[in-house]
């Protein structure tokens, strides 16, 4: 239609409303894409497998399963060396429910673990304060500990305050005493002695979910060698530790192959190790089983990933839908307001195609302006959405991702403008001209 600008000016209020609506939706889209999407993609590349060696015992017709501490720190090196698909491996010694002494006050924490630096890499743990212990501390058997952010808050008030403080890991016996469960303490076991650790770092799991109690997600982590004093050796850089879990990470598409390779590699090794450990086999009718699961946290992470992906795609869909609905309604309002003008244009020689074309161009222009308003609006919206960054690991979005989000947003608004412009114009510009002209202004 000719003199489009005049017609647009005549209906400026609707146009501004549409631009604002598209702007808000597009801004939301950018925020979602830049802030949430990067966190959704994180676990996509690798999967974490949890390997345990389970003793299965028939008791009163029921199969009782118990993961036994049979892994050696070298096993992590072994599987990494033998199975090329494995990118990271770590053995973890777990002790659920551990008693601590900090400033002469006893605490009970959910779980402590002893492991090596591979564990931090495996879970992509980052220090939120201080550092995580590395190979050097491992080699020296230094009495250092890293603790979770939650534990740091509980024990010391804040992550920063926890650094360089000391905490004493109490014996199992003292832990049970603290819980009033000492009576259940199995006789004949040597309780591990106390040990004092210096806190060097505070970490956070990439997907920390305070609601989920996962005993295998330790709140206190010390170098491998500590914690496992049940073999009569003194606590300290322990020369002969046994771990309960072996974690490996591998590309997701190799998961099955790795699982099988682990069976082949570890089953004979562990059978042999068990035989060397002692002759108790004779009295108990138990069987042993190597279990490799995408278990525990890996499963949890995957589920969280799926949930987040669903939430994010839902939000993206909602934002795109909102923008699209705004465009379609805006175009319907503007086009039906111009029904008579369109009829007149056709009388004067405009083809339906020409009218639809110019309406589509107009709609795309409006959508594009809305999209750019959205890009501008994404900055303040990001501030508003700051609490949402807990959704992922926080941190800043890489520039490339931001640029991609902007591009995506503009492309989506342009396509939306095209589709939303086409139908209303086509609808209004078809049918009897005589009727269209008769329409009152």
């Amino acid at each position, binding site marked *: 239609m000719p003199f489009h600008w005049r017609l647009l*000016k005549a209906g400026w209020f609707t146009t501004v409303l549409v631009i604002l609506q598209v702007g808000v939706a597009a801004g939301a889209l950018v925020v979602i894409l830049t802030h949430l999407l990067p966190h959704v993609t994180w676990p996509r590349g690798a999967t974490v497998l949890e390997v345990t060696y389970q003793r299965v015992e028939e008791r009163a017709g029921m199969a009782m399963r118990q993961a036994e501490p049979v892994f050696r720190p070298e096993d992590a090196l072994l599987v990494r060396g033998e199975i090329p698909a494995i990118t990271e491996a770590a053995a973890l010694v777990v002790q659920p429910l551990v008693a601590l002494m900090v400033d002469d006050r006893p605490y009970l924490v959910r779980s402590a673990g002893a492991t090596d630096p591979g564990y931090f890499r495996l879970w992509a743990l980052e220090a939120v304060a201080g550092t995580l212990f590395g190979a050097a501390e491992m080699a020296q058997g230094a009495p250092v500990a890293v603790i979770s952010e939650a534990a740091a808050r509980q024990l010391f008030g804040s992550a920063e305050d926890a650094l360089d403080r000391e905490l004493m890991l109490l014996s199992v016996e003292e832990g049970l005493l603290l819980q009033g469960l000492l009576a259940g303490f199995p006789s004949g076991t040597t309780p591990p002695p106390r040990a004092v650790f210096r806190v060097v770092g505070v970490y956070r799991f990439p997907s920390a979910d305070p609601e989920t109690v996962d005993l295998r997600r330790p709140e206190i982590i010390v170098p491998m060698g500590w914690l496992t004093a049940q073999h009569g050796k003194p606590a300290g850089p322990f020369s002969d530790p046994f771990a309960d879990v072996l974690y490996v990470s591998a590309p997701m598409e190799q998961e099955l192959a790795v699982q099988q390779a682990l069976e082949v590699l570890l089953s004979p090794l562990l059978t042999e190790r068990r035989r060397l450990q002692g002759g108790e086999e004779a009295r108990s009718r138990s069987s042993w089983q190597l279990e490799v699961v995408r278990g525990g946290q890996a499963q949890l992470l995957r589920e969280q990933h799926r949930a987040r992906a669903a939430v994010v795609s839902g939000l993206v869909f909602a934002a795109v839908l909102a923008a699209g609905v705004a465009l379609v309604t805006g175009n319907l309002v503007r086009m039906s307001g111009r029904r008579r003008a369109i009829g007149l244009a056709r009388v*004067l020689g405009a083809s339906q195609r020409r009218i639809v074309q110019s309406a589509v161009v107009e709609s795309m222009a409006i959508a594009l302006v809305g999209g750019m308003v959205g890009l501008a609006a994404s900055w303040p919206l990001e501030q508003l959405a700051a609490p949402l960054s807990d959704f992922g690991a926080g941190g800043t979005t890489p520039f490339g991702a931001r640029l991609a989000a902007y591009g995506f947003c503009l492309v989506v608004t342009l396509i939306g403008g095209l589709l939303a412009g086409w139908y209303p114009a086509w609808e209004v510009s078809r049918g009897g001209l*005589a009727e269209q*002209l008769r329409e009152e202004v």
Partner: protein
Amino acid sequence: MSVEGDGRTGELLRLVGVSRLFHAGSHVVTALQEIHLSVRQTEFVSIMGPSGSGKSTLLNILGGLDAPTSGKYWLQGREIGGLPDRELARVRNRHFGYVFQNYNLFPELTALENVEVPMIYAGVGRRERRRRATVLLEQVGLGARLHHRPAELSGGEQQRVAIARALANGPTVLLADEPTGNLPSNQARQIMELLTRLNRQGMTVIVVTHDPSVAACGQRLISLRDGRIVADEAITGTSDVAARVAQLEGVSL
């Protein structure tokens, strides 16, 4: 009038057996019934008839704004029915100039811009458009009103803008549906003088009207009743028309 006229006699339009039905809910309204009509170049045709007799419907079909339910329509020997939208748009743009009772100007545009619109669709360049629009508005006596919006013009002036716009692409036929219907008599007279002048310069004009004095400007009077042509005669004076009107109205009662 014979329906077998040919191009050599200067025949411009020809309708053969044209009917137009409207479906209003469950019942069917026959707006036009078996119309046979031929219009030659440079004719000035007046169409009269009681309200609802199908005058506007006939004019809309002649101008390509409406399509007959049945029957055929030739414009300069070319059949119009069944043309695709793009071709039809071109025909409307090049061959017809439309003048309506309610002027139908774009209220957002100035007089000059209104006259330019059909030229835009014809692909006329910006400066040529402006030049021609200015000349046309001067011809209809609105040289001093080029940049006025319709709301700033009198009814007669608006109708003259509409006539200038109708002439923009040098049409073959000027079609006017009650062009003076909304105007006081002095302004109506100006409009009719304008149409008469254009016709004398060679423009074919077809006017639908209720007003015998308007119809009397033409050379030929077509009378419609209940969607049929009941009379098609040459006009010799105003009294002819008045008599015909009295007859038509009387019969319709």
